């Protein structure tokens, strides 16, 4: 049944702001984003918030709910006591634009610096062949909805804004790993991942994995294997990932790439 929810919401811009207290009617089965929308429609028409799909698919509605990085559209009110005040603040690692909306351009900068996919030629019939087992690793990483909650959580940037220059963050380590494990890619980005993207700064705390709404095992499945590949120990990649991941078997066919210049 419906009840009155107490909400504290951060209101303000890049320069100043404060937590505002609100009481809003909510219904059974609602999520935090519903409460925010009702607030917007009835009490605070100019409350800034990002959202699109309202179904956990687009990664727009990231914020910190009672201090924890989460998607507002996937956080159910039923997870809280009715009497509890829910506090919603913008992602801390990024500059605030207004209210719950932050400037996430850091992530788009990092995306631009990543050398893209460079496939081998097509088969004679114009198609390409890859086995399901070979694409599954990459598919896990491509579930990423770019909510940037992992980026927000990672202490390397959360606590040290200066690190942003040299650190691509977990979302992009995922991308490096995805391409490195792609059966048809010809680039070798290991050195780049280590140097320019700052993979070495990650000390495997796994905080990023904990907040990922897609349940991607960022640390175990992407970062750690990537670090191991970088170290280039006497790992035979074939035995290491199971015989299926590297159909071509040798890294000799991959070419080492340099960071992309500003596009």
């Amino acid at each position, binding site marked *: 049944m419906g009840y009155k929810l107490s909400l504290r919401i951060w209101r303000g811009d890049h320069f100043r702001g404060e937590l505002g207290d609100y009481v809003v009617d909510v219904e059974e089965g609602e*999520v935090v984003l519903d409460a925010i929308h009702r607030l*917007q*429609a009835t009490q605070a*028409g100019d409350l800034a918030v990002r959202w*699109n799909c*309202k179904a956990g698919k687009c990664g727009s509605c990231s914020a910190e709910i009672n201090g924890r990085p989460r998607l507002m559209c996937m956080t159910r009110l039923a997870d809280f006591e009715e009497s509890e005040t829910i506090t919603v603040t913008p992602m801390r690692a990024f500059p605030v*634009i207004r209210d719950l909306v932050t400037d996430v351009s850091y992530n788009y900068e990092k995306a631009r610096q990543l050398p*893209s996919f460079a496939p081998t030629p097509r088969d004679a019939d114009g198609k390409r062949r890859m086995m*399901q087992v070979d694409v599954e690793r990459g598919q896990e990483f491509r579930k990423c909805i770019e909510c940037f909650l992992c980026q927000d959580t990672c202490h390397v940037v959360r606590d040290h804004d200066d690190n942003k220059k040299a650190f691509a963050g977990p979302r992009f380590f995922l991308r490096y790993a995805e391409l490195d494990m792609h059966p048809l890619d010809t680039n070798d980005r290991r050195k780049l991942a280590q140097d320019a993207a700052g993979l070495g700064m990650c000390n495997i705390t796994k905080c990023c994995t904990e907040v990922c709404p897609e349940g991607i095992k960022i640390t175990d499945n992407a970062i750690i294997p990537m670090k191991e590949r970088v170290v280039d120990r006497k790992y035979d990649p074939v035995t290491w990932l199971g015989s299926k991941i590297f159909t071509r078997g040798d890294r000799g066919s991959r070419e080492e790439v340099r960071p992309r210049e500003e596009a």
Partner: protein
Amino acid sequence: MTGSHVVTDENANSQAPMAGRHPMTGNRMTDEVTADGHGFEEHHYDVVVIGAGGAGLRAAIAAHDAGARVAIVCKSLLGKAHTVMAEGGIAAAMGNVYADDNWRVHYRDTMRGGKMLNNWRMAQLHAQEAPERVLELEEWGALFDRTDDGLISQRDFGGHRFARLAHVGDRTGLEMIRTLQQRAVELGIDVFMECTVTQIFKDGERVSGAFAYWRESGRFIVFHSPSVVLATGGIGKSYQVTSNSWEYTGDGHALALHTGASLINMEFVQFHPTGMVWPPSVKGILVTESVRGDGGVLRNAEGKRFMFDYIPEFFKSETADTEEEADRWYDDKTNNRRPPELLPRDEVARAINSETKAGRGSPHGGVFLDIASRRSAELIRRRLPSMYHQFKELADVDITAEPMEVGPTCHYVMGGVEVDPDTAVSIVPGLYAAGEVAGGMHGSNRLGGNSLSDLLVFGRRAGLNAAYSATRFGVEPPRVSDTQVREAAAHALAPFSVGGGENPYTIQRDLQDIMQRLVGIIRTADELSESLGQIEELKRRAEGLTVEGHRQYNPGWHLALDLVNMLTVSECIAKAALERQESRGGHTRDDFAATDDFWGQRNLVLTQGAAGRVELNHQPLPVMPDELKSLFEAK
């Protein structure tokens, strides 16, 4: 900002620097300010693409590849457009699973699904080019699910003769948008994110640019460009129960109309048969058709597979009439006919509507969609991971153990900008349209999976042709005048100065209520006439909108501007729906229940006449050549 503002701008965010890169998006910015100009940020491009969904991104890539300087402008962040939500797959007759599949079969399915009202040439190009467009995505890094021999796997969907949808689990749209986004970034195409276009400029008869505001700061931008591609998606936000997001306010439809282009097929709105119905907070959120494609069935409160009672004459010969045959079909398509649950969407949506009206619905006013009793939990989780997640998280339902409750939800608009099939140009020189905002391709009803392929095929065509046309404007490039810009700015700022006291959120809610009740799945002349009267009343109220706060990231203001588009588009839908006195595809009239050949020969075309009034005209359907006609005579 160095220039003097003609329009007062005291509230805009003072931190936004006007040189170098934009702090939000990293876009390159200029600070060109002409001495006597309008003082707003300006950019010059060959092609401006409005929209960063599948159609917009594909258009931008094509225009870039053709050598044009291209900008993409979008209301949300890059990668968040509606395309990201698409689940089931991309329809393309690649023949990877059934070698018998080819473009002719796909073409035939598409035309029949649209009840033959589709533009035949668009449907042909679409079926012919979709396979290469999908392979191209793979070229750019997409990782589709595979068949046993390593090819792109294809899944069953309603209305498609063969398993034809290239997919990645049930998150195909995410794969598609990420792939195209990464490609566009790699090519260095400029993207203006969280930037909304409010007007398209013309110099004489030809497009000359566009006017937009940054959502972040509320500041204005002027684009100079001889070609503009509309790729703005749909209109679903005008309905109460919808699978669409806030972005779907019909901006592109309205922009086209105001710029002098025409809209066709606007009476056809697709209600997807399976949206979530409970809890209220998620009402309308899509449950992908893949659930049925992968074996799920619909049952009423009595446990009956009611779709067997709703097989229309038109599809009798290709639809199974016993449960046994239907169940065999999943493994043997050659000797069995397709289950009635996989009839085109309009048929299934109407059937569900009738069942619930007859009191045989589920507790929350839907029907049951059951895959739990038919497929293993393991298979369900693997094939439908995001459905599993969605129901678990949002409705506390475990779809591997219990049935889902589902009901129709407004999903897609078949209607859109009338375009030339080969080039995607509208009747306005320089104005192109592709994707959901374009009309004609899907006729009266779209088959699942045919949108994502449509985006790729016609996005590319629009981009190429827009680039080509940008070099062919004659001696002088078309110009945007300062007066045009000042008027556009004044228009955009009006909600701050008008003091009528109307709340945009309230008017939006009232519109959604009207459209849902009076212009919904089942329509009548009386209700449609009533809706037109009420929309007129809302338009009047909307003239007195008042917006709180200032221009910086102000959703109330943004809605106030979008609302005008929603009202225009709603009027178009209601008007065309009232005119078409028959039932066909996504348009069902209770008072004209039959499909009528007279109406099957004509399109309804909407334009903006004098004094801003929407005008409606009949136009004969383009005639299909005989060699294509013969595809419908053979079985």
